[in-house]
C-alpha cells in the first residue's frame, strides 16, 4: 500500500481480513498452495513434515509389487491399528489382578463395540508378527541388507524383538488362565540361566537368571507387581521404543538410497510416456544445494532423475492400498473369530496344555527339551547370527534380485528340504525314542543343556551351511541356506507345538485325540 493513498477505514480492513481468514488459514497450513499439479504436489511432499519421509520422486522399480509386496507398510499399518484399538481398550482396562479379568469381561460383554475392538486389536497384533517376519524374509532374500543398508537391517531386528515383546506383554493383561500360565513359563524362561549356573554351582554368587525374573515380575511370582510392569511395558515403554526405532528405520531407508534394486533395473523397466515422467525445468528455484553432502555424482540439468515418478500420487496410492488391505484383513478376521478369554487366572492349577501364543510355540517345543537352550541359548544364537549377516556377506552379485538369481533359487529349494527334513527327523526321533534322561536317568543336566534336540538341529543347519559355503565358494549361498533352514525349522516346530502337542505336552496326531479331563 503506497503511503500516499488514503488508508481504508480500520473497520473495513477488519471485515475483509475476517472474510479472508479461512482462505489464509488454509494457505498457511499448506505453505505451497493446493497440491494440484505435479510441481505443487512435489513441493507439498517436500515441505510436509509427515510426507517428507518419502522422497519427492520414487524409482519405478520400487513401485513394482514384487519388489516388496508392501510388507513394510503392512507392518506399519498393523502397528497403527493396534495403537488406535489399544488406546480405546485403555478406556476400560484396569491393570490390577482383582479387576483386570472383570474389566476384560466388561469390554467383551458390556462395552459397546468392545468385543469387536478387542478382536481387531488381537488380530492386528498377530498380523503384525506375521508381516514383520515376512518383511524380514523379503529383505533377506533380496539381499537388501547389503552395504550401505547394514544398519537398517539391525534397526529392523530391533523392531522384530520389540514386536514380539509387545505381543508377549499384551498376553498377560487379560489375567485369565492362558495369560497367567504363559507368563509364568515366560518368566521362568528368563530365570533359566539358572539351569547352567546351578549345574556349575555358582548360582549363589552369580545369578543373572534370578535377576531377570525379579526385574520382569517385580516379585517371585506372577502377581500385581508383574501385571503393572507388563502393563507399563505394553502401553508405554515398548510402543515408545518401537516408534523411536521406526523413525530411524524409515529415515535410513531414504538416506541409504531408497529401496534396493538390481544394477540393471533401468534397462529392465518398460519405457514410459512423457506424461508419466514430468520434469520441472521452467522457473528453476534452486540456487544452492548441499553438493558436498547429497549422494549422487552431479546435478541433472534439464531432465528428471532417471526412471522416477512423483511420489505423490504414485507411491501414496500404493501405500494407501496396502494400508486399506491390512485394515480390511484385521476387521474381517475380527468379525470371523473372537479373541480367546479363558477362566480367571488360578495359580494353583495350570492350563493343560499351557500354550504360549502360536509364534512362541516353536520355542516352547525347544523349551520342552531344555529351558535355557530353547528359551535363551538358541534364540540368542539366531539373533547374533542374523545381526552378523550383513557384515559377513560382503558380496554384491544379485543385490535386489529375489534369491539372487537362478542359482540362489535352487539353493533355497534345496535348503527348504534340508531344513524341514532335519527338523522332522530330529522331532520324530525325540518323540518316538525320548532323549538322554529316559535312557540314562543319572545324566548330568549340563549334558542335556548342551546336547538336546534343539542344539542338534542348530548344529545340523550350521554344518549344512558351512558345506554350502565351501561347495559354492560364496558366503551369500551359505547365508541363504542357513536362513532358509532356520525359517523352515521355525515353521515346523511351530506346527508341531500348535497342532501335535496336547495335555502334558504329549504327542497327539490331532487335538481330537486329547483325553477328556
Amino acid at each position, binding site marked *: 500500500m503506497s503511503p500516499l493513498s488514503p488508508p481504508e477505514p480500520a473497520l473495513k480492513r477488519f471485515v475483509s481480513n475476517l472474510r479472508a481468514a479461512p482462505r489464509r488459514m488454509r494457505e498457511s497450513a499448506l505453505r505451497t498452495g493446493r497440491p494440484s499439479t505435479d510441481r505443487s504436489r512435489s513441493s507439498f511432499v517436500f515441505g510436509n513434515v509427515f510426507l517428507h519421509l518419502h522422497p519427492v520422486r520414487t524409482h519405478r522399480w520400487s513401485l513394482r509389487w514384487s519388489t516388496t509386496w508392501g510388507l513394510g507398510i503392512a507392518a506399519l499399518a498393523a502397528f497403527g491399528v493396534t495403537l488406535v484399538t489399544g488406546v480405546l481398550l485403555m478406556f476400560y482396562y484396569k491393570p490390577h489382578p482383582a479387576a483386570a479379568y472383570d474389566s476384560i469381561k466388561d469390554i467383551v460383554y458390556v462395552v459397546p463395540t468392545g468385543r469387536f475392538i478387542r478382536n481387531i486389536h488381537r488380530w492386528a497384533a498377530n498380523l503384525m508378527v506375521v508381516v514383520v517376519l515376512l518383511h524380514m524374509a523379503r529383505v533377506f532374500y533380496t539381499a537388501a541388507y547389503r552395504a550401505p543398508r547394514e544398519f537398517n537391517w539391525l534397526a529392523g531386528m530391533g523392531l522384530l524383538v520389540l514386536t514380539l515383546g509387545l505381543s508377549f506383554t499384551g498376553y498377560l493383561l487379560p489375567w485369565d488362565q492362558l495369560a497367567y*500360565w504363559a507368563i*509364568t*513359563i515366560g*518368566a*521362568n*524362561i528368563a530365570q*533359566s540361566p539358572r*539351569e547352567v549356573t*546351578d*549345574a556349575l554351582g555358582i548360582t549363589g554368587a552369580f545369578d543373572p537368571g534370578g*535377576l531377570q525374573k*525379579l*526385574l520382569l515380575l*517385580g*516379585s*517371585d*511370582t506372577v*502377581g500385581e*507387581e508383574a501385571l503393572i*510392569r507388563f502393563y507399563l511395558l505394553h502401553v508405554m515403554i515398548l510402543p515408545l521404543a518401537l516408534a523411536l526405532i521406526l523413525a530411524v528405520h524409515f529415515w535410513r531407508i531414504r538416506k541409504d538410497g531408497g529401496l534396493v534394486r538390481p544394477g540393471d533395473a533401468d534397462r529392465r523397466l518398460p519405457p514410459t510416456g512423457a506424461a508419466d515422467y514430468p520434469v520441472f525445468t521452467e522457473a528453476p528455484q534452486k540456487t544452492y544445494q548441499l553438493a558436498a553432502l547429497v549422494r549422487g555424482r552431479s546435478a541433472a540439468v534439464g531432465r528428471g532423475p532417471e526412471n522416477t515418478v512423483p511420489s505423490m500420487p504414485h507411491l501414496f496410492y500404493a501405500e494407501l492400498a496396502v494400508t486399506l488391505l491390512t485394515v480390511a484383513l484385521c476387521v474381517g478376521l475380527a468379525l470371523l473369530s473372537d479373541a480367546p478369554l479363558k477362566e480367571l487366572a488360578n*495359580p*494353583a*492349577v*495350570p*492350563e*493343560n*496344555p*499351557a500354550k504360549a501364543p502360536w509364534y512362541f510355540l516353536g520355542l*516352547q517345543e525347544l*523349551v*520342552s*527339551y*531344555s*529351558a535355557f537352550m530353547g528359551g535363551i541359548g538358541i534364540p540368542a544364537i539366531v539373533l547374533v547370527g542374523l545381526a552378523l549377516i550383513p557384515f559377513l556377506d560382503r558380496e554384491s552379485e544379485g543385490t535386489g534380485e529375489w534369491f539372487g538369481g537362478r542359482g540362489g533359487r535352487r539353493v533355497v529349494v534345496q535348503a527348504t528340504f534340508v531344513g524341514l527334513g532335519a527338523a522332522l527327523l530330529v522331532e520324530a526321533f525325540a518323540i518316538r525314542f*525320548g532323549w538322554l*534322561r*529316559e535312557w540314562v*536317568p543319572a545324566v548330568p*543336566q549340563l549334558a*542335556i*543343556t548342551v546336547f538336546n534336540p534343539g542344539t542338534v538341529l542348530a548344529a545340523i543347519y550350521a554344518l549344512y551351511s558351512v558345506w554350502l559355503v565351501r561347495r559354492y565358494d560364496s558366503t551369500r549361498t551359505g547365508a541363504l541356506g542357513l536362513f532358509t533352514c532356520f525359517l523352515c525349522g521355525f515353521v515346523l516346530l511351530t506346527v508341531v507345538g500348535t497342532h501335535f502337542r496336547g*495335555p*502334558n*505336552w*504329549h504327542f497327539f496326531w490331532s487335538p481330537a485325540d486329547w483325553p477328556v479331563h
Partner: protein
Amino acid sequence: MSEPAPSSPSRLDPEPIARRDLLGLASLWSAGATLLFALVGMARLPKAAVVSSPSRKYRVTLPESLAPGSAFVPPGRSVALFRDGEGVFAISTVCTHLGCIVKHGPGGFECPCHGSRFDAGGKVEKGPAPSPLVWHKVSADGDGWIVDEGTSVPAGTKVAS
C-alpha cells in the same frame, strides 16, 4: 610457563591443549558422567528391595483318612503332603523346569506344561526338568503340622508323627 627459556614459544603458537578444548572436554565428560550416574540410579529403581509374597510358613491339619501314597494339598498352596509308616513329608509341586504346578498321580508327579515326570520321591524320570522336586521342612505342632516353604530339606527327610 614458569621459566622463560631463550627459545620460549611465541604467544601465537598453539598451546599443548587449547584452553577452550580443555573446558569443552571437561564439560562434555561431566555431562556424560552425570547422564551415566542418573541412568544407574534409574536402573536401580525397578529392582524391588522387598518382595511382597504371602507367608510361606503355615499350619495344616492332615485328614485322618490320608493313606500312604496319596497326597494332601492344602487349599491354595503348591505343596503335597504325604504320610507313610516312617512319618510325614512335604514335596513342592512347583515344577523345576518352568514353574508349572505338577499333578500327583499313581507312581509320581506329572507336569502338564512340558511333560516332565517325577517319581514318588520327586526324582526326575523324564522330560526337561533340570532337578528333582524340592522337599520342604515339616515340623509337628500339636495335632497339626507346620509347613515351611521357605526352607528345603534333603529328599527323604520324614518327620515321625
